[in-house]
C-alpha cells in the first residue's frame, strides 16, 4: 500500500485547506471545523481548476425557499476558484448540484502530528 506523510497537523487550522503532493499527484488536504482531515485530487472535475485556490466555506442549503436563505455546513464545502462548483468534503467530495459527480479522494490518517495520505 502506498502511503506518504503530506503535512503536519499544525500546518492546517480547522476550516483551512492546502495543496500537497502524493507521489506525482497534486492533492488537496482539507481540515473541517471538527478537526478531521480529508484528501482529494486537487483538480476540479469540471475544467480542472486548482481547488486549493478556491475556498472552504459553507453552503446555502436545500431548506432555503425563495427569499429566505438557509446557510450552514460551514467549513465543510470546497468551492472551486473558477466557476464556483461546490463539493461536499464530508460526503466523499460529491458535487452539491449533481451528487453523481465527485472529486477523486484519498484515505487519510493522522499519526502523532503527521497527516498521512494512503490509497
Amino acid at each position: 500500500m502506498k502511503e506518504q506523510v503530506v503535512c503536519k497537523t499544525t500546518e492546517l487550522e480547522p476550516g483551512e485547506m492546502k495543496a500537497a503532493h502524493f507521489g506525482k499527484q497534486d492533492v488537496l488536504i482539507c481540515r473541517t471545523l471538527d478537526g478531521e482531515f480529508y484528501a482529494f485530487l486537487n483538480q476540479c472535475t469540471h475544467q480542472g481548476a486548482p481547488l486549493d485556490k478556491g475556498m472552504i466555506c459553507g453552503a446555502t442549503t436545500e431548506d432555503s425557499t425563495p427569499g429566505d436563505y438557509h446557510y450552514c455546513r460551514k467549513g465543510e464545502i470546497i468551492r472551486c476558484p473558477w466557476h464556483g462548483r461546490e463539493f461536499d468534503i464530508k460526503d466523499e467530495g460529491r458535487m452539491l448540484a449533481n451528487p453523481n459527480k465527485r472529486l477523486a479522494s484519498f484515505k487519510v490518517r493522522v499519526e502523532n502530528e503527521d497527516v498521512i495520505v494512503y490509497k
Partner: protein
Amino acid sequence: MGKEHIRIVDTDIHERVQYKDILKYLDEPFKHYIQNCHWVQEKHMPYTQPTVAGVDRADAKIPDGKPAGTDLAFMQKQLLDDIGHEFGILTSALDPSPSSMHGWYEMATALASAYNNWQIEEWLERDERLYGSVHIAAQDRDAAVKEINRVGSHPKMVQVLLPIDDIMWGDPFYHPIFEAAEKHNLMIGMHHNEPPVYYGKWPRYFIEWHTLISTAHMKQVTNMIFNGVFDKFPNLGLMMIEGGFTWVPHIMWKMDQQYRDLRHEVPWLKRKPSDIFKEQIRVTTQPAEELTKQEFMSLIEQMGTDEILCFSTDYPHWDYDSPTRALPNLDLELKKKIFAENAKSFYPKLPNSKEF
C-alpha cells in the same frame, strides 16, 4: 491530440486598468475628477457574481494584491505562456473604460482616448501576441468617429468595441461609426457589458441575468441584419463576444423563416439572413455549455458552417473557459479552425501567414 499541437487565438481576454493608473493618460479637467473628486462610474448591476472572488478567477489575483488582469507579467505567466497562445485579443470593457457610461459625453470621450493610449502603450506594444480593441464613447458619435480615426490605424488594433446602449446598432445613428471602422479594417465587437435582458429592469438573481445574456446578442444581430447594415457595409464584420454559441442555429432559422414570409418589409436584404450571418458575423465560444462531441457536431451542422465559432477564454474572469477542457475533443481540422483559423480569417489585421 495535446494542446501543444494547435495554435490558439484567444478572442476574449480582459486586461484591466485601475483608476489611478489611467490618470497619466488623462488630460485636465478630467484627471482632476478622478484624482481629487473621487469619481467612479455609476454601477448598475445590483448583484455581484456569487462566486469565490466575484468577477474574477480566485487564482488570477496578482500576488501583490492588485486585481486580476492588471499585470502583464502575471497574465503572461498564467495565461499566454502557460497555454502557449499565438495571439490574444484584449477586450476589457471594465470601468473605467467608457463602455457602460451614459451622459457626461466629454468625460466619456476623454476616458476612451486615455484608455486606448494606456492599452497601446502598456499592453499592445509590450507583448507581440496581444491585439487590441478601440474603446469609444458612442453617445457622442462624432467624437467616437474621431477616436476611431485617431487610433484605428494602429497595427495592433483589430476591432471597435461598441458600447451597448438603448439605440440598437442597426440604427443609422451608428453608420458613421461603421464607416470609420470599415475604413481602418476594424471589425465591430460586442462584448456584453450589463445589457438589459429583462424589460428594462434587472432580474432578481444574477443567475437569471447571466443565463439570458445571449438574448442581448440575438437582439443586436437581428436588428443589424434586418436594418441592412451588412449590405450597406459589406466589409464590416461583427464579433459577438461572451454570449456562448448554442443560440446561433435558433436565430438563423428564425430569421430565415421570417424572411421568407415577410421579405416585403425589408427589400434591401440581398441575401438570406443566415447567409449574412455566415459571411459577416462570428461568435466566441465562451461561456461554453458542457456538450458531448455529438451534441457539439450537431450544432455545427445546424449552423451550416464550421467557420463561425472562435475560441475564447474570457481570462481572468470567473467563467473562464480552459482551452483543453471547455469544448469536447474535436477532430484536428475543426479544432484548428475554432481555436485559431476562424479568428485569423475574420480579423483582417491579425497576421494570417504563420504556417501550421
